[in-house]
């Protein structure tokens, strides 16, 4: 049987300001993931790096260690490869005052 493979859109047209994150996504079945972030509108201000966060229960979160750039122009895409993320995963960012990005966040999960 072919291994399981899923594209999950976990944030669509959400405007991130301040401390923001995608909704918790349960993906314990997957061995690997790629997170894609696309800017759906022209971002504003100085953008920080996004971080991968993982969790045992979807409520208490740890910084997994991976950081990656957010896209700096409309329709630009950035990504981060991930392995060993256990169960819940999300993408978080802490934006400074005046910064804003409207994101499409996609998880590509593979067993």
């Amino acid at each position, binding site marked *: 049987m072919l291994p*399981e493979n*899923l594209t999950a*859109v*976990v944030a669509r*047209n959400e405007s991130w300001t301040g401390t923001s994150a995608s*909704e918790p996504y349960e993906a314990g*079945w997957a061995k690997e993931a790629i997170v894609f972030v696309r800017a759906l509108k022209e971002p504003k201000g100085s953008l920080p790096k996004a971080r991968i966060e993982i969790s045992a229960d979807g*409520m208490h979160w740890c910084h997994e260690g991976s950081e990656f750039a957010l896209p700096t122009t409309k329709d630009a895409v950035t990504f981060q490869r991930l392995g060993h993320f256990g*169960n819940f995963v999300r993408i978080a960012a802490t934006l400074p005052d005046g910064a804003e990005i409207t994101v499409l966040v996609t998880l590509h999960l593979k067993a």
Partner: protein
Amino acid sequence: MRRAIREADPQLSRFDPLPRIICFDDFDRGMCGWTQLVGNYEDSLDAMLPGYAQHSHAMLSTLPNWDFGSHGGVDGSYALKIATRPKKGAQNVAIKRLTFRKPGPIRLEAYFTFKPEATDLQLSETDIRSFGFLYDLQIGDSSGPGDRVMPHLRFLNAQDGQHLQKWQFKRKTTPIKPIGNAGKTITHYHLAPDDWEDLPGGEQRLCYNEIPTKVNWHYLRFDFDLASMQATRFQVNDRVFAMDGFDSIRIPAMKNLWCMLNLAFFAETDTDKRAFAYLDSVCLSGEF
């Protein structure tokens, strides 16, 4: 013979399908075609109604809990999980999109359960507003004129902290609005919180366990006739409800949805806490 084979199969023997199984979705084999219900839009995603914009993707879940670990499904490790956002009134939906080949009887069967996110060490039995399901149906292009018919049923568990526990249905959707300028797209939000009506005799006390992480699975069966577009039977656990007082949302047939057989489940929260609905498994069968 057919019955003997079915009853000897541990997965199928807990269902009573009609002669032809249209789909049998055990989420140990992946998402089985269940996906996110995305709203209509044109040119910009900003055109999407807020009710749809809040929707996110269902998950393959082991029902993990912080206090005792994975709960697992009825059978196997995984169930389909539909999670709302942590905001009072938030909803989420998972949908499977099919078409039918004969307008006859169909039967939906599923095992379901629901619970709030266990952010408090309290029972939290009133934190979920509702769990429900719907069909989105339209007759074949040669059978018209007819309607687009959307039977909706929800278990209103609680509202504003009151534990109500009753089944409700819906006859009205929101006004249909055009989207964009191309004249190709319209939208309405059929899961709007207004216009739910009590199913006569639809009060039911479901099993819920003593802490917010334990769940028990419930059996659900809904029989519907695609020829008459009428519900014929509804059962949850040991209760069979009279469907004389039930009706569906009915709107004029649309030019692009012939023979549509869409099936969706949804969850809604009554507090600023995520509501989780789980399915394992879903069996859709028909008489054809």
